[in-house]
């Protein structure tokens, strides 16, 4: 029963595509033609066991053969003419024509750019460096020779552009060359923009040689672990400079898990070390004695005689 249910649907889809391919012939003639075809398709399907398309080929080919044998004019030339007319209509549309004229006027800019791209892309591919004072000029031997090469290439490219306007031959190779150079413009452009950001970045580094916050030899310090002379890790040690400035650490970035000491007056203290972190969702520091793997040396020097508290 499955084949009986399958056969009509396959015939119907096939028939629908044949009908679509014959859309342009008069309705009554098409109806009679398709009535003839439909009955025969059912016969074909039941006799060959299902696949009409496998037996008869693509429905569009079937329709073309049917049309030709029935002596009905083919539809393709008509459709081609329609396409061409539509394309020509589009080309003569005032806005399209204006765009075409505008790009024709702008073409000399591309010719000049093209000349530069040729030299820059070749220099880039060869791994040549660029002039230090003028980043866009590739060094070919020297920066001066590089600049001369760019100038020559630009002149040659403009000459080719003018020549191509007068001569229609070699239009295809020129179009391909233009597309290739348009592609080569991407790495050249990236190289140029990279150079300019690099120069800016160097300036920033000079200005920010001092790392904000706590640092040791220029590297930021994110924690301090103070140990007593007998090797015990100390907790909540408040550190100050000789000028009395607290050695605050990361006062700006708010970290909800950081354990921050609070004074009796309600002020927060940021120079207490080591900095500890709570387990997420709790107020518990899981391992308060965890620290870096250091071996605190045995101290021979006698402890300072400290009397009482200041």
């Amino acid at each position, binding site marked *: 029963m499955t084949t009986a249910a399958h056969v009509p649907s396959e015939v119907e889809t096939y028939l629908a595509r044949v009908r679509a391919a014959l859309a342009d012939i008069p309705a009554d003639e098409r109806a*009679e*033609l398709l*009535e*003839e*075809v*439909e*009955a*025969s398709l*059912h*016969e*074909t399907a*039941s006799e060959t066991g299902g696949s009409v398309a496998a*037996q*008869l080929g693509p429905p569009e080919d*079937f*329709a*073309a*053969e*049917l*049309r*030709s*044998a*029935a*002596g009905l004019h083919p539809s393709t030339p008509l459709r081609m003419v329609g396409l061409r007319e539509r394309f020509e209509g589009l080309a003569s549309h005032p806005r399209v024509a204006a765009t075409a004229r505008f790009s024709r006027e702008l073409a000399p800019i591309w010719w000049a750019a093209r000349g530069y791209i040729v030299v820059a892309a070749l220099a880039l591919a060869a791994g040549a460096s660029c002039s230090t004072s003028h980043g866009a000029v590739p060094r070919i031997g020297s920066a001066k020779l590089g600049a001369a090469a760019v100038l020559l290439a630009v002149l040659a490219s403009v000459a080719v552009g003018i020549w191509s306007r007068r001569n229609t031959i070699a239009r295809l190779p020129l179009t391909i060359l233009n597309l290739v150079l348009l592609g080569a413009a991407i790495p050249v452009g990236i190289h140029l923009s990279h150079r300019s950001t690099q120069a800016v970045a160097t300036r920033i580094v000079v200005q920010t040689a001092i790392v904000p916050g706590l640092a040791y030899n220029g590297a930021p310090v994110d924690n301090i672990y103070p140990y007593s002379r007998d090797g015990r890790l100390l907790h909540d040690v408040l550190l100050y400079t000789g000028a009395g400035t607290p050695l605050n650490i990361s006062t700006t970035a708010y970290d909800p898990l950081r354990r921050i000491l609070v004074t009796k007056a309600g002020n927060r203290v940021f120079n207490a070390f080591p900095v500890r972190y709570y387990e997420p969702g709790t107020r518990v520091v899981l391992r308060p004695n965890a620290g870096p793997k250091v071996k605190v040396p045995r101290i021979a020097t006698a402890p300072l005689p400290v009397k009482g508290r200041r």
Partner: protein
Amino acid sequence: MDRSQLLRGTLDAAALAVVAEQDGYGYDVLRRLRAAGLTDVGDASVYGTLRRLYRAGALTSYVEPSDEGPHRRYYGITARGRAQLDESRTDWAEFSQTLSNLLETKVELTA
């Protein structure tokens, strides 16, 4: 030689001959043409040809219900169709004779 090219010019005569022998519907005519040896004949070519011969008045058509599937459109030959078939017969006999002579002569020349 491309048999489908040969068929193109002779399918009208072949279809008329089959229908003249006995009325038939599209698929039936196709099957009889194939059984007669025209195995390469295209389905769409036969259906299209029948429709064209019908439009030209060489065939008549009538519908008969079928037990299995949709009803069938039968084609029968008309007087005009018979005249066309006779004409085709004469033309073919002459043409095939001419070509046979030509081909056999060539074979003898090259042999």
